[in-house]
């Protein structure tokens, strides 16, 4: 009887284990099916690289939205990567114990804050900062609802991701390596630069890629501060309209305009495919780094 129970449980768990894989396939397949009508009606490159977005006239150029996403993500990475890396190095190599014990839960908490909360903060603090302080500083005008505001908010959101992965990478570097460098008279920073950062280079890239894919799909926080104007952005002070915001903003009317839902599902599919390839890339880099370490 106990053995039968065990057998049944085993089969049952095995079946459940197949489900996650099935879900991924189903998501890709489902979105593809739904975006098929528009893919059949229009040329693929036309959809991706046309700037004409007029759903009522049946024009669905996703280019402004793709550019909006790229701009925001890029700005966020430029801000987040150096700051997160320096923080991770500090926490793993320099910081006294109490700072480490203080910082860990705070970073966890930052990771757990809902994106709407980031968005509200963005509207209250970042948008006025960009509009009233940073833009005049550069001698331009900006309403504040801009690529830069979106990038800053996103950067804060992806700090925890990059810091976490980098900390793991640094922790996996053996201590004797550092000691060897220090005993040769290198300063601590020189040890970090020539030993820790070099040894962990691949892991750091993977951390960046993971942060990138997080930033790429973030919806609500960005949507709230980025302005949502469907044109290709000209500078960081101009508004943009990223892909996720496009999907989120238009779910209401998408059923009433022909091909609209299909276009939005295509947008979701593009997001999914990009993020999937980032995941695979990050994984590949990490696995290779691990193999080399062994």
């Amino acid at each position, binding site marked *: 009887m*106990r053995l039968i129970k*065990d057998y049944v*449980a*085993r089969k*049952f*768990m095995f079946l*459940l*284990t197949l*489900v*996650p*894989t099935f879900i*991924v396939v189903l998501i890709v397949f*489902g979105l593809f099916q*739904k975006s098929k009508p528009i893919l059949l009606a229009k040329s693929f490159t036309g959809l991706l690289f046309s700037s004409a977005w007029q759903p009522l006239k049946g024009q669905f150029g996703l280019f402004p939205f793709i550019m909006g996403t790229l701009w925001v993500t890029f700005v966020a990475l430029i801000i987040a990567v150096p*700051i997160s890396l*320096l*923080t991770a*190095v*500090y*926490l793993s190599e*320099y910081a006294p114990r109490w*700072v480490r014990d203080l910082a860990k*839960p*705070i*970073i*966890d*908490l*930052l990771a*757990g*804050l*809902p994106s*709407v*909360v*980031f*968005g*509200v*903060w963005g*509207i*209250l603090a970042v948008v006025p900062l960009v509009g009233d302080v940073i833009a005049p500083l550069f001698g331009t005008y900006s309403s504040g609802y801009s690529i830069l505001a979106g990038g800053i908010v996103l950067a804060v959101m992806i*700090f925890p991701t990059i*810091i976490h992965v980098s900390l793991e990478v640094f922790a996996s570097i053996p201590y004797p390596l550092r000691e060897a460098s220090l005993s040769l008279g290198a300063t601590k*920073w*020189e040890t*970090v630069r020539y030993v820790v950062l070099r040894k962990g280079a691949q892991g750091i890239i993977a951390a960046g890629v993971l942060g990138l*894919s997080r930033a*790429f*799909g973030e*919806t*609500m926080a960005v949507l*709230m501060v980025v302005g949502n104007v469907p044109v290709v952005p000209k500078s960081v002070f101009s508004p943009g309209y990223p892909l*996720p915001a496009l*999907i*989120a903003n238009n*779910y209401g009317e998408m059923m009433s305009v022909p091909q609209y839902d299909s276009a*939005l*599902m295509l947008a*979701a599919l593009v997001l*999914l495919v990009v*993020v999937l390839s980032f*995941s695979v890339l990050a994984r590949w880099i990490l696995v290779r780094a691990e193999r080399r370490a062994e």
Partner: protein
Amino acid sequence: MTRGPEASRLRRRKWTERVFTWLMAGSTFLVIGSLLVIIGTIVWKSLPVLKLSMITQTPKGGYYLGKEGGILNAIVGSLYLAIGATILAFLFSLPVVLYLNLYARKNSRISSLTRFVFDVLWGIPSIVYGAFGFLIMVFFGLRASLLAGIITVALLELPIMSRAIDEVMRMIPGELAEASYSLGATRLETALKVIVRQCLPGILTAVLISFGRGIGDAASVLFTAGFTDRIPTSLFQPAATLPLAIFFQLGSPVAEVQRRAYASAAVLTLIILLISVVSRVLIKRITKHVIK
């Protein structure tokens, strides 16, 4: 002491060291500070409007024009949704992770594939889950409802929870399971009575982390859970959620309603903080059953 170029080089190296130490400490300060600034800003802006009636009343007529009422509908809706989704995701995650760690051979193809798939699922943006949930809804002819929202959010939570549980379970030494087998226990008995108990603190953290994610996510429920001023009484009714309540109130042109959005954001932040504190306290108390 050496003089000349040697000494100046040493000075430069020491100077670089100092600059970078400051840069690093500054970055850390910035990261830690950003959390405090975010919470501070939201609390500061919401203090003048935060009234008890906000969290004890549902919206009355004209609430979105600045009249009386509260966001109880959204708070309860979010709790229902997140609790449902967390239970669903847990019923899924635990067996799968147990299978990966006890039944499947180490580094077998299925376990590495499944772990990889969890990583992939973890990376999928919540708006894509929202779109997918919407597709499922349309496919089964469901309307936006609590149930559809629960299913979508469960999908979103699944990888978060599974990865977190898996991380703890992998840490358990193999001897523990072997000791149990050698006493004649089957794998199922070992799993439920030894391994799960040993991982309990970790499992609990995983559940609470996913719960926090579920309650705070807006993009996935945007299409699926709908929005209503009433508290849902069945799975097939639409449910308001706190993140969406914040979002919609912010979109209002009435200043009073916008300020309520800040207050709602403060409520949501408070819930998240509470979850984090509770999980820390619980872990300390539960750890006493764990064999070290």
